[in-house]
């Protein structure tokens, strides 16, 4: 069983604020799912470092070209808080 502290650590890494009820809910659910996944432990599956994820050739790189999105206004319209055409955030450095 994952401990409450482990759940809180994962939540902190994932940037999720959880209620007390949610902490015990996820404690149970995460444990249930992760226990099931221990079936993978015994499988001899080492295939070296080359793990191919998808069956598509993506070896060709496109040119790194800047394309300006034509409708800046439409993008900004979805922002919860704007100031002078920029996204507004709380201060990240202490002011004197």
């Amino acid at each position: 069983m994952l401990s409450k502290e482990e759940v809180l650590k994962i939540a902190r890494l994932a940037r999720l604020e959880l209620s007390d009820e949610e902490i015990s809910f996820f404690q149970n659910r995460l444990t249930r799912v992760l226990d099931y996944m221990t079936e993978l432990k015994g499988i001899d599956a080492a295939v070296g470092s080359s793990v191919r994820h998808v069956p598509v050739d993506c070896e060709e790189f496109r040119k790194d070209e800047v394309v300006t999105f034509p409708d800046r206004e439409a993008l900004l319209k979805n922002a919860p808080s704007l100031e002078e055409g920029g996204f507004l955030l709380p201060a990240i450095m202490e002011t004197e």
Partner: protein
Amino acid sequence: MSALNELDIQSLLSGYEQKQFSVQEVAESCLKAISEKNPKLNALLEVSPEKVMARARELDGASQDLSRLKLFGVPVAIKDNFLVKGWQCTAGSKILEGYRSPYTATSVKRLEDAGALIIGKANCDEFAMGSSNETSAYGPCRNPWDLERVPGGSSGGSAAAVAASMCPASLGTDTGGSIRQPASLCGLVGIKPSYGRVSRYGIVSYASSLDQVGPFSQTVWDSARLLEVMSGFDPLDATTSKAAVPNYTQSLVESGLSQVTLGIAPKWLEGLDSDVKKAFDNSVAALKKAGATIIEVDLPRTKYSLSVYYLIAPSEASSNLARYDGVHYGLRAKDFKDSETLYNRSRGQGFGKEVKLRIMLGTYALSAGYYDAFYLKATQVRKLIQEDFESAFKKCDAVLVPTSPSTAFKLGEKSDDPLKMYLSDIFTLPVNLAGLPGISVPCGLDQKGLPIGLQMIGRPFEETKLLQIAKAHEQIHGVMKRP
């Protein structure tokens, strides 16, 4: 003649060609069906009669002859995790409530360029994470065959809208079965194309190495038509293939089975619902009678698909969903003193439980100390699953399996245990892990009168062959009746 909203794409196109009706008449008929049925089904989250009728008038009044376009005047519902300029895109989540798409997904753009008419945005599980449409923040969608039951998920609204004749076709996304399983539960044709066949640009990312866009329709021909319009290289999605796009509808003319070998994996069929097993056996027998060769294949490592999928998909999701931070778009929490509280609180309030569970699973699987045992291991076993299919396809052209181990279940029936819910995708997950094309076609009804689906899995980029087999099956079985 059927009501206009009940016509399939092929009938619509021929009706337009013979000037039997206008696009406006078809659009009105679909909007009427939506206003009658949607309050009960909750299949569509946004419908805009103004936008729909404006587009219908535009198509009817076009100066040049557009009626030869491949999807002229065809109403299509789009899952609410696609961006369609001017329409909402919530991905079924509260965190994206009110979001207006600033541009259109490539797949949808291609449908519109071919003359299609967007009829509405379809309900879905939150961020496409679910198998029943019950994780949607906007309420569950219901199955038109039985309102007490789920339509499947995550593209439940897309399936329900077509099954209820609100429109002849819709688009969904399929990361682990999210098109094929609802197609099966609602009695429709649904395709998950090969990874790289259709552009993912403009869909809300869930698990980027697994997500694919695909169609729902009543008939095989209709899905073939949607697929041939959408497929092909897109400079905006580096994982799309440059392989030429075949004329899928043209290829359906040759749908003989005499040269076709179909593989059955006996181990997959253990413990199935008995009605599902019976319908599956009947379909296999009918395909054999029509000339196909049936052989047994072994896919021993696919039994690990659930574990592999629920490590890889959540890992990718934990990274993809990092963008919902309460800054650029979407929900922003009210009280915060610093940036970290802003992020944590906005995400805590905006995401539902299943989404949080998967983000945390992925974060755990990628975190220091667990990466090798979980994420890396899963990617290695994924490779073994791909190899299982490669060896099977040396002996057969397609593998057959029921799409879902059971028919539509009741709302709430599987909500208590995540594994019970996850297991309803057990036959569809391996197909995404291996990047293969899969199609679900209706193959009968159970004793409760609920539809059963047959899944055909093919080699990468051999959609043509799959569609031909599906067409041959449809010729034997007939097109599924309406609920």
